[in-house]
């Protein structure tokens, strides 16, 4: 844990003034029906840090990510144990409003999913509308511009904001989805393989966007692309589910350490491309 503390210290100076919120998973386990898929995962995702979750398919990375904003429980047979603390507060506490928590912890999905019935601008402000947040026309215009700027899409779409969001290319749609999740000012942004459906150019734009957001938002990204994890993240957790056992974290630490000097031989095999 000392590596992460150090990391936190070193990063604390990078973005003065922004309210930083970290997210911590404590003893998180997960089941689908009677099938246990995650076993006592502990991971601290400090503020202003990009944390990459890597590991082979079916090791529970996405499940873990979905537990972080309570999307896991939208699947009928899904169960979980443990705590997820946002700024020290357990988001699974009975007194917590689930919609309020999801608003603070945004999510970008693997497949770009702009709302087809809405224009580009309406897609960006959809979060306000959906959560019943009032905003004047001027405020909305300001939010649209700011979020599209932060999502790295403004210059490409500023002249056609009232066109349908689905008219954009896949990479643009994904950046629109990032802008959409930023409009409700989340403290944490979860990304579930955001680039797996994109071409290399779009992937680079999304990675640039991640780097630009990192000083303000805590980002957790699931990726199958080892180079991407190395490029975008400061912290890294390697998940693995060995034959017949639930998934868990084998090793976590700074990305540099996990990639260059892994403690566990399995991590070493995975990051060097010997399996997975």
């Amino acid at each position, binding site marked *: 844990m000392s590596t992460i503390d150090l990391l936190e210290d070193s990063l604390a100076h990078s973005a003065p003034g922004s309210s930083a919120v970290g997210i911590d998973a404590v003893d998180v386990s997960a089941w689908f029906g009677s099938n246990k898929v995650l076993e006592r995962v502990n991971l601290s995702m400090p503020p202003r840090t990009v944390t990459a979750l890597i590991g082979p398919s079916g090791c529970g990375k996405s499940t873990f990510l979905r537990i972080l*904003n309570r*999307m896991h429980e*939208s699947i009928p047979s899904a169960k979980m144990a443990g705590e997820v603390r946002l700024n020290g507060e357990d988001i699974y506490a009975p007194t917590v409003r689930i*919609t*309020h*928590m*999801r*608003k*603070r912890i*945004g*999510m970008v*999905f693997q*497949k770009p*999913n702009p*709302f*087809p*019935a*809405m*224009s580009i601008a309406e897609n960006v402000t*959809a*979060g306000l*509308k*959906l*959560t*019943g947040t009032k905003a004047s026309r001027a405020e909305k215009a300001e939010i649209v511009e700011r979020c599209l700027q932060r999502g790295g899409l403004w210059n490409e779409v500023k002249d*056609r904001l*009232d*066109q*349908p969001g689905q*008219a954009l290319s896949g990479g643009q749609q994904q950046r629109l*989805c990032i802008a*959409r*999740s930023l409009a*409700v000012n989340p403290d944490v942004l979860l990304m579930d393989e955001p680039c797996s459906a994109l071409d290399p150019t779009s992937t680079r734009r999304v990675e640039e966007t991640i780097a630009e957001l990192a000083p303000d938002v805590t980002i957790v990204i699931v990726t199958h692309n080892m180079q991407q994890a190395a490029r975008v993240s400061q912290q890294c957790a390697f998940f693995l589910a060995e034959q017949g056992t639930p998934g868990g974290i084998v090793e976590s630490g700074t990305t540099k350490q996990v990639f260059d000097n892994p403690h566990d031989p399995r991590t070493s095999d995975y990051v060097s491309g010997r399996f997975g």
Partner: protein
Amino acid sequence: MTVVNQSPDLAVMSSAPAAPGPDVPRSLSTRSFDDRASWLAAMVGALGIVWVAFQVTGWSGKLGFTLLWFAVYLALYAAVTATGNPRPVVVDRLVAAGVAGGAAVVGLALLSTITYTVQKGWPAFSHWSNFYTETAAGVRPTAPLDQGGILHAIAGTAIQVGIALVISLPLGLGTAVYITEVGGRAAKTVRTVVEAMTALPDVLAGLFTYATLILVVHLDRTGFVAAVALAVTMTPIVARSAEVALRVVPGGLREASLALGASQASTVWRVVLPTARAGLATSLILGIARISGETAPLLIVSGASTYQNLNPFAQPMNSLPLYIFSAVRSGQPNFIARGFGAATVLLALVTVLFALARYLARPKRGNR
């Protein structure tokens, strides 16, 4: 030296000579002249054979002639194809010919129904000055066609369908939303019941309304009661097709909405329903088109009037199906013509509604 000599030749060979002029798309059809000729030959040959057979044996009858013609045509077509093609091709052609024949039968049936109706209704239908602007009040069944009209029936149908729509829109959409968005064990039961109700004989909807609203609540036979009977028929149709429209909304959109912090109600109202908008509009219009021509329930719960009655809560109210039913059953040629004229109006109305449904369900593109 040899290399130098060869290179110009090679260059010519490797780059295809560019023919001047615009390029023309190639024909990608796999049907050769032979194929077309054998089809035509089978068709004409069969016609000849059957005609000769009818002459020789003295058989008669159009239906028999057509059926025999089709059978002989299939046999000839198969025989001709078999001479130059492997077995799968023969089977393929035979099945295609059979399917095309079936389609022709269905198309002809539809076409003949429409032409027969329009033809019989034309004398009344074409009296533009009175048929659509006057009612049947005080018009004797034997009266000439330039007197009286069906305005009261058109108005009645419009009012009854309007009320039925107001009742089944929330019920049908609500049921569909319950089945697809809320779910749970009860949703399956509801779905089964809805499916069963779409197959319910329409006359039962009339009997149900009669038993409840007229016998128990003691309402009169008014336009409103008729509209309720129509709504009973319409609601399951709307619910069933709206459910299909909601089911094709991608689950990723629901997740995206929930992940933004939206409640489930807000997700349904602002994401799922707008996304399925076109499909839902179609389901409603299909329901309307279905009940506009519904006759059985109206026979039980609706009285028929000859005068204009715009109040659905008092006095009987006529409607197009009821008017058609009573008109074509009368013995008077003029009154029968009026019935067919009204049927033509109903056909046109349903066609317009279907066209509207298709228009609303069109794929959306460009800016909105």
